[in-house]
């Protein structure tokens, strides 16, 4: 399944400047693992002990995955996964 994962501008230093990474994955967790395979430094920036860090938000087509099944949220072909810092707003 072709998934586009969007990376925040501030982290593009570890993705060789890429703002979007095309990967395959049936769930959000699989898609992120596929991104980490290409850009290994991203893994520890975004996750800790296999779970998302507490100030990282992940959205599938605009919907927060915490309202779905978290990293087990299933993806459909063409879905867009967006990684964003959670410390904005208010």
């Amino acid at each position, binding site marked *: 399944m072709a998934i586009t994962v969007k990376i925040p501008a501030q982290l593009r*230093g570890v993705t060789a400047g890429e703002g979007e990474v095309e990967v395959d994955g049936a769930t959000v967790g699989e898609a992120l693992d596929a991104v980490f395979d290409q850009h290994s430094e991203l893994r520890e920036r975004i996750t800790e002990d296999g779970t998302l860090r*507490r*100030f990282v938000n992940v959205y599938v087509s605009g919907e*927060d995955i915490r*309202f779905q099944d978290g990293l087990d949220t299933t993806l459909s072909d063409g879905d867009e996964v*967006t990684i964003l*810092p959670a*410390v*904005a707003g*208010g």
Partner: protein
Amino acid sequence: MGVTGLRCKECGSAYELEAAYFCEECFGPLEATYDHAGLDPAEARRKIQAGSSSIWRYADFLPFAGGPPATRTSLEPGLTPLVRAERLAERLGLGEVWVKNDAANPTHSFKDRVVGVAVAKARELGFGTLACASTGNLANAVAAHAAAAGLDSYVFVPSDLEEQKLLATGVYGTRLVGVKGTYDDVNRLCTELSGSRPWAFVNVNLRPYYSEGSKTVAFEITEQLGWEVPDRIVCPIASGSLFTRIGRGFEEWLEVGLVEGALPTFSGAQAEGCGPVAQAYSEGWEICKPARPDTIAKSLAIGDPADGPYALELARRTGGEIEAVSDDEIRDGIRLLAETTGIFTETAGGVTVATLRKLAEAGRIDRRERVVVVITGEGLKTLDATREGFRMSEIEPTVEAFEAGAEVASAAA
């Protein structure tokens, strides 16, 4: 002396004083750091008292070098009244209650404090356009400060906001964008846009500076109480930024010896229709589960509060709590404050007063405590919440008609 840089609250990584808001190592929030070594408390007090009648009297404790920044706008926020609320205290069986009335700011909410700081920093950093994600009060403040500074602005709000808040934003000539979604959708959109637009989003890429403005609430309360720290603060929580930065303000002054005593007990106030921090508090969680807002307190309708973990930590560390109240309790809270103090607050203030009442009725507040209630905004911005609270008698313009009925009719519905 003064501000030294930015630092990640989670991992401690250091950053320059630029438009940066999260740690690239761990995504933690950045906050301003200060060096107050060698500060003489007596001299610092004198300097503050000789300063302007606004937040800029505390410039040495804000993220600017060399006193009040030349880049500040002509809208001077702060130094709002702190009034003793004897009749409110009496109604609730409490000893000493004070109301910090932040509706008395240039755009009638505490947001002028944070925007005042963010806009001064934005201009210092060379930005020509301001932006924000807002539940309403921030929209008013950003639009007004942009107008005062002669800057362009984009204000993003949920499209179903109270009409009063939309009108009090649009009048300043901003580009008002109503987003079909919740505040959290607006916030996500602005976080994405901030990565590609060269704008100062006051509560995104300038958030470490913006949030510092809230410390001035603590500074003013301390100064207005005759350089004393109150025993308890009752304060609304949306993102948790105001709540936690008021705590930080007291801590800073206690650390440098500007005031003596202990950190107040922090009681947080949320609406039941959007109470992710109250829920995490009562469940014993360290992080919040996001909520889908459904409350009349739209200015507090943040389902994914950025500073939730820190608000929980502050409430627990100070022996406080975080409570949630219903929409009916919010309406009653607005009336209770209005009837006992003459202060008309918006729904967020209703949440705060209702929480005070709830704590008082549960016996959680000792009669010897000096309590300060932080009223963050103006009642004229959320008029719908008061529509059914009273009745007007309508009569012919004669003495007879008045005596026939209206005179005996009580003002209470």
